[in-house]
C-alpha cells in the first residue's frame, strides 16, 4: 500500500535520511524503530509531505505522492498523528473532531450554515470509540496527556484514513496508559481494516503488535522483516546494546 523508494534528505550537510526504502503491505501493522536521532520523525515528515525529499519517491496506493502537500495527502487517505501532541487547544474535544469531519466531508467552504450541531452523531460515535465521549465538552488544551493522544487518534480517524502513521503514539505515557493505548489502537485498526505504520521507542509495544519491523540507524535501514528475525539480527543488537529496555 505504501512504498518508500530510496528517500534521502540532508539538512545543511547533515544527512538525516540516506537512501531508505521499505514497503508497508495493506492491512499490516508495521513499525519503524531506531535510536534517537535515527531519522524516524524526519522520515515520517518526508512521507507525509511536511518535508520535500532531496531524492527518492513515495508511492501510496500506486500513486506517486512524493512531496505533495499534506492537505492533499490527507484527502487521499493517509492519516497521521504527531510526536508532540497536535490538537486544537482552545477548541473543545467535540469541536476538534467535528472540525476533522467538516474538512473531510467537504463542508469547509460553507460560509453560511451554523456549525453547531453538524455531524453531531458521527462525532459522538467516534468519541465513544476512542473513549472520550464523557469529555466531549471540555476544552482540549486542559486534558491530560493521555487523553490528548486519544483525541489526536480521534481526529485522525475522523478523516477515514486507509493508512495511519503514528509518530511515537505512547511517548510520555505510563506503562498502564501505554497498554491501554496500544489495545485501543489495535482494536480500532482491526475494526476499520486500517493499515498502521508507527514509530516507537518502547520495544515491548513494538514486538507485541507489529507484523513487520524496519530498523533505522543514522538515517539508514539496517534491518527489515518479521519481529522474530529482527530480534536476532546481529546489527540490531549491536546498535541497541546499552539501550535500557
Amino acid at each position, binding site marked *: 500500500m505504501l512504498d518508500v523508494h530510496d528517500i534521502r534528505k540532508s539538512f545543511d550537510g547533515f544527512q538525516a535520511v540516506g537512501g531508505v526504502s521499505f514497503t508497508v503491505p495493506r492491512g499490516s501493522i508495521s513499525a519503524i524503530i531506531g535510536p534517537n536521532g535515527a531519522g524516524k520523525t524526519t522520515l515520517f515528515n518526508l512521507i*507525509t509531505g*511536511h518535508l520535500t525529499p532531496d531524492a527518492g519517491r513515495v508511492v501510496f496506493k500506486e500513486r506517486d505522492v512524493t512531496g505533495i*502537500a*499534506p*492537505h492533499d495527502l*490527507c*484527502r487521499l487517505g493517509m*492519516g*497521521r498523528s*504527531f510526536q508532540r501532541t*497536535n*490538537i*486544537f*487547544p*482552545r*477548541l*473543545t474535544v*467535540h*469541536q476538534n473532531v*467535528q*472540525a*476533522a469531519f*467538516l*474538512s*473531510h466531508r467537504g*463542508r*469547509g*467552504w*460553507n*460560509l*453560511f*450554515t*451554523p*456549525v*453547531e450541531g*453538524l455531524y453531531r452523531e458521527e462525532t459522538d460515535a467516534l468519541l465513544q470509540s476512542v473513549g472520550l465521549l464523557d469529555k466531549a*465538552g471540555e*476544552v482540549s488544551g486542559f486534558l491530560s496527556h493521555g487523553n490528548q493522544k486519544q483525541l489526536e487518534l480521534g*481526529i485522525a480517524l*475522523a*478523516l477515514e484514513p486507509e493508512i495511519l502513521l503514528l509518530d511515537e503514539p505512547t511517548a510520555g505515557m505510563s506503562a498502564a496508559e501505554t497498554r491501554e493505548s496500544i489495545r485501543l489502537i489495535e482494536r480500532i485498526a482491526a475494526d476499520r481494516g486500517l493499515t498502521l505504520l508507527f514509530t516507537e521507542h518502547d520495544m515491548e509495544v513494538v514486538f507485541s503488535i507489529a507484523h513487520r519491523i524496519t530498523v533505522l540507524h543514522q538515517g539508514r535501514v539496517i534491518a527489515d522483516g518479521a519481529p522474530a528475525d529482527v530480534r536476532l539480527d546481529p546489527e540490531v543488537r549491536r546498535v541497541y546494546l546499552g539501550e535500557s529496555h
Partner: protein
Amino acid sequence: MRPSRVPWALLVLVAAFFVPAVGSRFYTFLANDVVIWALFATSLNLLVGYTGLVSFGHAAYFGIGAYTTGILMKRLGVTFLVAFPAAGLVAAIFALFFGFFCVRLTRIYFAMLTLAFAQIVWAICFKWNEVTGGEQGMPEIPYPDFGLLERLAPLLPPLGGYRTSEYFYFLTLVLVALCFWALRRIVASPFGRMLTTIRENPERAEFIGVNVRRYELAAFVLAGSFAGLAGGLFGIFNRGVFPDFAYWTKSSEVLIMTLLGGMGAFYGPAVGALVLLWLNQQIISVTEYWPLILGGILVILLFAFPGGLAGALEALRTRLVRRPRSA
C-alpha cells in the same frame, strides 16, 4: 461562543436608532464614528482573532474603499448604491492581489509585508494628484441622495424631519448591521471553524485536509472587503478622503481597538471601538496628550487584561457564576 438568551446586539442596534432623537448632533456624530470603526475593527478580527494572522496593514483596504467611493461619487457622479458596494469590491481585489503574496509568509514576515503593501497604497494616494488629490486628499464627498426618503416622509411620519447627516447615520446603521450579520454567519459557519483550526494549529489543520494558504487568502479577502466597505462609509462621514486613511498608524489604531475589546469575542472589537472613541473624546477635551493615555491603557491591557474587555468580562462572569458551562 456562548449563546446568550438576551439578544444584546439587537437591543443595542435598536437603541442606536434613537441617538439622534435623544442626543445632540455631537452624539450622533460620535455614534456614527463608532459604528464605522466597529465594522473596521471586526473585519480585522476575522484575520487576527479568528485566523491568527496579525496584519499591520489593514488600513490599506480601509483607504482603498474610501478612495473608491470618493472618486466614484465625487468625480464621476456615481450613485451611492453603486459606489458603496464598489468600495468593498475594489478593496477585495486589492486584498486578493496583496494577500496572495502575504499568505506565503509567516508571522513577522507576513506582518512586514502587509505593512509594506499598506505603505505602498498610502504612497500612491499621497502622490497621485490627478486621481486621488494627492496630499490634499478629496474634500467634500457628497452625501447619498436622500430625496426618496424625504418624499416618503409624509406617508411615514417617523421618516421625516431629519438632517442629512442624521439620514446618513441611519443608513450607516442599517448597512453596518447587515455587514455584522454577514460576518456573524461567516464566523459561525464551517468556514469560520476551519479558520480557527488554522489559528490554533496550522500544522494540524493541514493534516485534517485544510489547504491553509487558500483559507488564509479567503479570510484576507473577506477581511479586506469589509474594511473597504467601512472605508467607503467613512469617506462620506468624514466629509473627505485623505491619504492618512491608509497610513500604518491607522492600522495600529484599529489593531489596538481589536485588542482592547477582546479578540476572542465576536463583538469584542466593536466594544473596543466604542470605548476607545468615547475615551478619546473625553480625554482630548481635557488634554492634548491622548497618545500618552492611550499608551498607558495599552500597557495595562497587555499586562493585566490580554483578553481585552471581553476577556475580563468573561473571567468575571465565570467567577460569579460557578456553574460549569458547555461550549
